[in-house]
């Protein structure tokens, strides 16, 4: 499950590898990528990620919490 999530995110970001510690606003994960991530994760996992909580996101682990 975790592995699949990381692979999915890596594919969207078009990078070799990401980890749960990959941090927001570093590397390819800018605000436009955040938008893409929310869109893709919602569609892929059939969840609704509350906009309010996005302000607290620091790493991919925080994103994973929305979908697991």
């Amino acid at each position, binding site marked *: 499950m975790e592995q699949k999530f990381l692979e999915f995110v890596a594919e969207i970001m078009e990078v070799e590898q990401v980890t749960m510690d990959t941090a927001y606003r570093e590397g390819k994960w800018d605000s*436009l990528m955040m*938008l893409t991530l*929310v869109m893709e994760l919602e569609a892929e996992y059939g969840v609704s990620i509350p*906009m309010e909580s*996005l302000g607290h996101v620091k790493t991919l682990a925080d994103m994973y919490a929305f979908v697991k």
Partner: protein
Amino acid sequence: MADLKKKIALLSNVTVDLIVGKLRRKYDFYLPEGFDTWVQEAINPSSGLYSYKPDAVVVLLDGMEARSWKNSEEGMERVLLWKQALTAIASGITTVPVFVSTIAFQENRIRSLSERKYGCELENDWYQYAQGLTENRSNFYLFDLADTIAEVGRRQFYSNKMWYMSSMPYSRDGLNTVSKEIDRALDAAFTPRRKIIALDLDNTLWGGVVGEDGVEGIELSDHKEGQRYYDFQRQLLEMKKRGTILGIVSKNNEEDAEAAIREHPAMLLRDDDFVSRKINWENKAVNLKAMEAELNMTEGGFVFIDDNPVERETVKGECPEMLVPDFPEDTTQLLEFAEEIWLDHCRPLRVLSEDLKKTQMYQTEAKRKQELNQSLNLDDYIAKLEITADIHRMRPEELDRVAQLVNKTNQFNVTTKRYTRDEIEAIAKTPGNAVYVVYSSDKYGDSGLISVVILKSMTEAIRIDTFLMSCRVMGRKLENVIINELAAKIGKKIVGEYCPTAKNAPVKDLYERLGFTKISEDDGHGLYEMDGANYTKKEYSIYKQIRFED
């Protein structure tokens, strides 16, 4: 020559960075700075839009914007402003394609059951305006966003969250769909279209096997289960009406298949809808190659449709350039299957009157070939065809067809210079220059406008800038007739030029054959001249009629 990416200017009232992200591998994009600044860009003649010199412009207008309008008056003002912006684009961008989106407004559902729907009226007002542009401007086309949204469904197409977060209103599905539709529209402008669909018969155009089930027994009707094949045929017929031609490649007894095509009451496609029929027990790849040769077409112009995966694999192996789509296992999807092929590979920007006659033209071509086989030599053959040629200066209504030929003719094209419609018009208007067109017909039918000659004036001489001919009429020595008439008219030195390309080898020695003298050759590029001042006009008695009108 390196295959450069096309430069696309994308103008929109919503954020389109994510659309660019989906398409940037294929195209380079120009986006105006800032949010919803496209109207200023359009109206300001020194803006980035114009200095970018795009290869195409896409104006994508989304109805989500209406959410910010205070009242219906504001909406009307906005649409008026858009019209002004479009008018500015129409005067600033006259040669490259401009795609203008239709719009779908999300009507506020908090309303009674008797209130006016202003959005509806604005949508229609905008549609009328945009459609009018496509009719009056040869480089304007409709990008039907409203239809795309309806097709996907608004709930699935949009995402409020995306809109609030970024002013980009689409869901993942919406974003993928709108990106794909933009790509398809650009493909219609930049990717050669497939021209012929070669079709299997049994379990493809109808259900069942006619050789076993009989004409009465095949599955085909205008309602219920058999309608899936009827609908498929209707889609093919609609494509045929728009210039895509149809052929048959089927393993069958010819009499059985012909009987079904002729007699079945629900067949929409009849005998004269097909340009070529290969109904036999021969390998299909062999049949398809024979069809290519017969119609003077290349493999890349073909789509082959067959329900049998073994046949498809054989054809894919033998004809790698041919498009061989997977046939739907669930035949209730045939209608959409046809639609996808059309949208991805066949849909042209515009249908010209010459395109409408294509099926007939290719059919007569097949008859001509038969005649050639029975004739003793080429002159006898030409005489038997009763060919006419009508040569005259280009008229304004012929400009579209001339531009089409100038931009797509590859084989009989000595210089392969590509000009836009406006450039051709400008050349024709320049004193000393001339653009001539040639029409031809024979006893089997009218081939229409088949040749273009562009003459440019030099001191003491006339240079043949462009000389091209449609491959439909190659091999009839019409080039002799055309040069004969023009040389007699020009009456001074005539200079001809051959610029080699990958495809124009058939005219490599054209000028020598026409009696010109070679004056230089450099890396395959040849320069020729003829003394037009002392030219003695020849008589060509093998043609039925030759008309020249200056």
